[in-house]
């Protein structure tokens, strides 16, 4: 099917885009890579009078190191980030998550900011952002503000961005010290959205004990979800003494999966527990060998 008619705007600065959005709020939507929005328009799940194209805004593109964060412009293509040396070196979890998004043709067009703003609970990047404690910078008519990932994802396809705000960049904390990362997911076919998935980040202290741990699930509720209780239980344990399977069983208790045509909630929970055990083991091993 074809999308309904709309008026097209192609601003060249963030300010111009925000002004357009403000003037047409309620009837306007920004388009980045279009890899989620255009299917929704084509299926007529969504319809807008105005589309504001971000693709000509150079300042929204690019990856740079700023202190202890790696700042990724919202319009940076998923494929550019996937092949970025900076991402590979400083945010290994993001580097490993990117190839799991769809297919290379999707990543050539899809953007980092689009994936996060879209806030699909089964998506890799919202899960990674939550796992690492990334921050999102939003620009609106009254200036900009920065939102922590833990406050950003509200519900399915819903973030805390206001309708007149644009996500300008995402800041990922860079990996430091003795740390390890892993992402595991199960999908029916390569490139499909995951039925369930999990990402893990751990940091060890000088005694090889867990100093910090983060476990975040995708596809296991209306948003990506952190397993705080399981994370706390890990702290202080020696990396080689962690019972990964037991921790994973505790971790999935933090999730609220639903049933759908692909999998029941119970099946999702079993898969997620198994994936979490694997991810945790891999992250711990990586940190322990670092």
């Amino acid at each position: 099917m074809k999308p309904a008619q709309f008026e097209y705007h192609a601003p060249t600065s963030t300010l111009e885009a925000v002004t357009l959005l403000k003037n047409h709020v309620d009837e306007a939507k920004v388009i980045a890579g279009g890899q989620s929005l255009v299917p929704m328009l084509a299926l007529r799940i969504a319809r807008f009078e105005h589309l504001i194209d971000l693709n000509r805004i150079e300042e929204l593109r690019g990856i740079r190191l700023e202190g202890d964060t790696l700042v990724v412009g919202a319009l940076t293509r998923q494929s550019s980030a996937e092949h970025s040396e900076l991402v590979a070196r400083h945010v290994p979890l993001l580097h490993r998550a990117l190839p799991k998004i769809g297919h290379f043709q999707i990543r050539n067009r899809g953007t980092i900011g689009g994936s996060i703003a879209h806030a699909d609970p089964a998506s890799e990047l919202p899960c990674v952002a939550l796992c690492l404690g990334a921050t999102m910078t939003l620009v609106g008519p009254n200036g900009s503000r920065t939102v922590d990932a833990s406050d950003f994802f509200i519900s399915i396809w819903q973030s805390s961005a206001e309708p007149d705000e644009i996500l300008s960049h995402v800041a990922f904390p860079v990996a430091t010290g003795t740390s390890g990362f892993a992402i595991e997911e199960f999908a029916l076919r390569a490139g499909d959205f995951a039925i369930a998935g999990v990402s893990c980040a751990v940091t060890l202290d000088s005694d090889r004990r867990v100093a910090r741990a983060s476990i975040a699930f995708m596809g296991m509720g209306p948003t990506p979800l952190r397993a705080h209780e399981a994370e706390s239980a890990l702290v202080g344990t020696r990396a080689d003494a962690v019972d990964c399977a037991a921790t994973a069983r505790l971790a999935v208790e933090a999730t609220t999966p639903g049933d759908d045509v692909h999998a029941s909630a119970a099946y999702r929970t079993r898969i997620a527990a198994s994936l979490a055990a694997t991810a945790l083991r891999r992250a711990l091993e990586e940190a322990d060998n670092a």
Partner: protein
Amino acid sequence: MHEIPVSIEVNARERRALLEPRATLADFLREACGLTGTHLACEHGVCGACTVLLDGAAVRSCLIFAVQADGQSVTTVEGLTPEDGTLNRVQQAFWNNHGLQCGFCTPGFIVSVEALLRDNPHPSDEEIREGLSGNLCRCTGYQGIINAVREAAGN
């Protein structure tokens, strides 16, 4: 809704048209340029039949509005084919290996495989499967297609 002038370099030739913003790049190629090698099946990003190269990158032309590609360059399956009507290396490999049956999905596969082999001239079997995962075929079966890519890569 008013139409917008669009100018896109297609297969090294400048093409202009006046289009509604909702016309996709695939609509522009098929209807304004008469290049019907770019096929449309699902029109929502799932099947890959509409794959073209946009400034060299393989993308779904059903998920890009033509107005967005204004000033950019596009290569379609027609642009990858020798002028004398013979088949290129990838097309010949599909022919040799029963890589197509009805042929509907084939242009999308050819474009994707061209991009795949340009970036990775000798992919492993796993990389071939991964590289083909964004294109659906509903009748040949994938083994012939995988064999075609192996042959085109000289594996």
